[in-house]
């Protein structure tokens, strides 16, 4: 009953997948996976049978099912839509589900994201990101939906909206990774979010003060590391961070506006007077 696409005697018995399908005869691949926790650890080598088109996540899950049941790894959709399986492969942040094994010659080293505390094996504690997200003034519009907005009004919002929150841009950003400015800096992911909020034609909040003072936009010195690792191709530096920096510069470093502020005091940053989360 497992003849693949031949005629099946009784159609109520579905063909059962051949587990050897796509196995490349005798070929194996070697993975060196970080095994450890907050107290440290080391790479452990695993050898697994190579399957055509295999991604690194397939290899990691094979190890989990057959050799190390307690190997910790995050994953969900396995289709590069959810951003759960971020890790560092040969030192670079990648989605495990989107990285083919055959891309690499020689050993494949798999490590957890390093800009966050390691929990265990390939899992890091990324909860800080959700705290940052909670602080950003949410979308608000005094207009009543359904909105009338044209494609040309919203075209540039589609790109930042593609973000899958894999947090690889956060991982690679040296302001976080090297300088540990987690308390003062929101990181590229949240500049991407702030960009669409700021540019949404119906949103009526002003986040420039928040961007400057709470999100620490000024710490970014546009090295474009975040753009390079984005798995969905968001041009984070050019399309999110630089336009936001320009807006902040216009607001705070324009001499005429500076003088007006000195005379009138600080302008109320929020047009609706509500607190950041609308409470």
């Amino acid at each position, binding site marked *: 009953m497992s003849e693949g*696409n031949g*005629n*099946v005697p*009784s*159609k*109520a*018995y*579905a*063909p*059962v*997948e051949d587990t050897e*399908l*796509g196995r490349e005869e005798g070929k194996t691949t070697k993975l060196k996976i970080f095994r450890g926790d907050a107290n440290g650890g080391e790479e452990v080598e695993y050898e697994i049978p190579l*399957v055509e*088109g*295999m991604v690194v996540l*397939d290899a990691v899950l094979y190890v*989990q*099912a057959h050799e190390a*049941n*307690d*190997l*910790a790894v*995050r994953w*969900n*959709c*396995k*289709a*590069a*839509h*959810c*951003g*759960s399986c971020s890790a560092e492969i040969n030192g670079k942040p990648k989605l495990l589900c*989107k990285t*083919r094994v055959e891309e690499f010659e020689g050993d494949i080293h798999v490590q957890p994201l390093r800009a966050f505390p390691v*929990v*265990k094996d390939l899992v890091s*504690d*990324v909860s800080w990101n*959700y705290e940052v*997200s*909670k602080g950003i003034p*949410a*979308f608000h519009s005094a207009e009543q*939906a*359904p*909105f009338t*907005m*044209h*494609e040309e009004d*919203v075209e540039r919002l*589609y790109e930042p*909206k*593609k*973000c899958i929150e894999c947090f690889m841009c956060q991982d690679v950003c040296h302001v976080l990774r090297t300088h540990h400015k987690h308390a003062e800096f929101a990181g590229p992911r949240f500049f991407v979010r702030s960009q*669409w*909020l700021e540019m*949404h034609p119906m949103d009526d909040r002003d986040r420039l003060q928040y961007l400057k003072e709470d999100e620490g936009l000024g710490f970014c010195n546009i090295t474009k590391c975040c753009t390079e690792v984005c798995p969905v191709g968001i041009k984070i530096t050019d399309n999110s961070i630089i336009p936001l920096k320009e807006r902040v510069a216009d607001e705070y470093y324009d001499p005429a506006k500076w003088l007006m502020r000195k005379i009138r005091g600080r302008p109320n940053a929020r047009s609706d007077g509500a607190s950041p*989360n*609308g409470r």
Partner: protein
Amino acid sequence: MERGGHANGATERYEVREHDVLIIGAGGAGLRAAVEAAEAGLSVGVVTKSLLGKAHTVMAEGGIAAAVGNVDPDDSWRQHFIDTMNSGKMLNNWRMVEHFTKEAPERVFELEQWGALFNRTPQGRISQRPFGGHTYRRLCHVGDRTGLEMIRTLQEKTLATDAKVYMETTVTKLLKDGSGRVVGALAYTRESGEFVHFKTKAVIMATGGWGRIYKVTSNSWEGTGDGVVLAYDAGAELVDMEMVQFHPTGMVWPPGVRGLLVTEGVRGEGGLLRNSEGERYMEKYDPEKMELSTRDVVARANYTEVTEGRGSEHGGVYLDITHLGYEGIMKKLPTMHEQFLKLADIDISREPMEVFPTVHYTMGGIKVDPDNCETSIPGLFAAGECAGGLHGANRLGGNSLSDLLVFGRRAGIGVVEYVGGSAHGAEIEEREIQTEIQRVLDPLEKPAGDGDESPYLMQQELQTAMMEHANLMRNEESLKEGLGKILALKDRLPRVKVGGTRLFNPGWHTAQDIRYLIQISEIILRTALERKERRGAQWRLDFDGPDEELGKINFIVKKDPQGEVGIERREISPLPEHLASLLEGKVADMAGGEKRGAESQF
């Protein structure tokens, strides 16, 4: 607050968290319910097995079905009602369908109010695309990542309330007080393996489906049906459990991506299905709707073409969207383009995709009140895919996302009314909690032995058995054989053993999941044996067409006093006049419009 102590060696410490309502699951339904309850002033706790924003809703691609009539002004809730009832082959709870089709447009506008962005029409309104079984262009969408837009919008909205989200937390048992009301749950955090007792006044189940009982599925690891089994164990009724949707188009090659979803949006945008002979075979199965027939029909057509020997190189059929060209594809289906290019080395703007049916959605689930989503157990509510009734025997594409919004909100309102001013929240006996903790810890803490079973390998065995015996073509002999295999697995369940510590240990987590998978598989096989006809997703080869009498009943499942699966035939109440009149002369062939006859597969 911490509880427990050191009275004896077997006593585990655990944390106590109090909320008015605990919502289990953070997909579209759970988060929509959370927003509703939190904004009404309730203290809300949301638990999710994953990180926030990773629930399966994120995978929805094609769009949200709602009769807003932006591109086809003739569309109405009435037509959406007719389409949904026809697709569900009249097994649907008609009251749910009425609420759903009337309220879906408001829920879409509400998402827009909260910052969701949809593609626009030339007039600047939300654009809508055609989908299988929908009479009009009805799916509000943004490219092929509508689910991402929806989950992110709801996630950000939830974070802006006072709701407390417990990420990477697994619930293992619902707790009831002496009068039988659900008053909380026991859970553990996946990161630390420490236990939490949630003391609440009500619980909303929003745990999604159970596609993971099958080998080839578009579902993520999370789709293990926890909520349905937790509710079943608590005594709740389930409905239509035999109905499992196979999406017609899943990826086929390479092996690692087998089953990954290829959005119906591809066919919505004009994609053509062909077999290895180059024939546009949908002409044989549904000449009127062709590729945009309902999912049950297209899935069986694809399956039949392949099993009759007209399949592609890797055992699929061809889905061709090349006519859109690179520019068109990058605008309408960019995610699909990327998915095939990166994972299969296929440029879909130049060559066809290979596709085959993949398990996608579960129509059945916890039986709920159509107005407030309360289950048959007081204090327990359910919404979204884990609840049953709305979709009947087959779900229309795009109806799931609007289901989450409409009934997520209704469950939230239901809980607000239920909790009211009352301050119940009974004490649970310490012994009950400790017993449950020991049960959960057992696979980890018992000594290793000779007959130990790996939860991963048992899961694979179960998935293979369900794939073979409870597929989209069924018969009594095969279903019985499948049931035998599942019951044998059930006997082996106590021998599951995992190594390692409690710290983020997926082996231990899988040891919990496997119990759910086995219980649900048993229920599906038993109800599929009972429904002796061809109707929607339930396609019995040993019966010739639909059965008029069976068309008037739902199979209701409830745990019987002996702890076994009890099945009751319950009559569907007749439609009220204002709904019955909508369907007059508009009821489609209940088998799905295909050829009839015992010899024919259709």
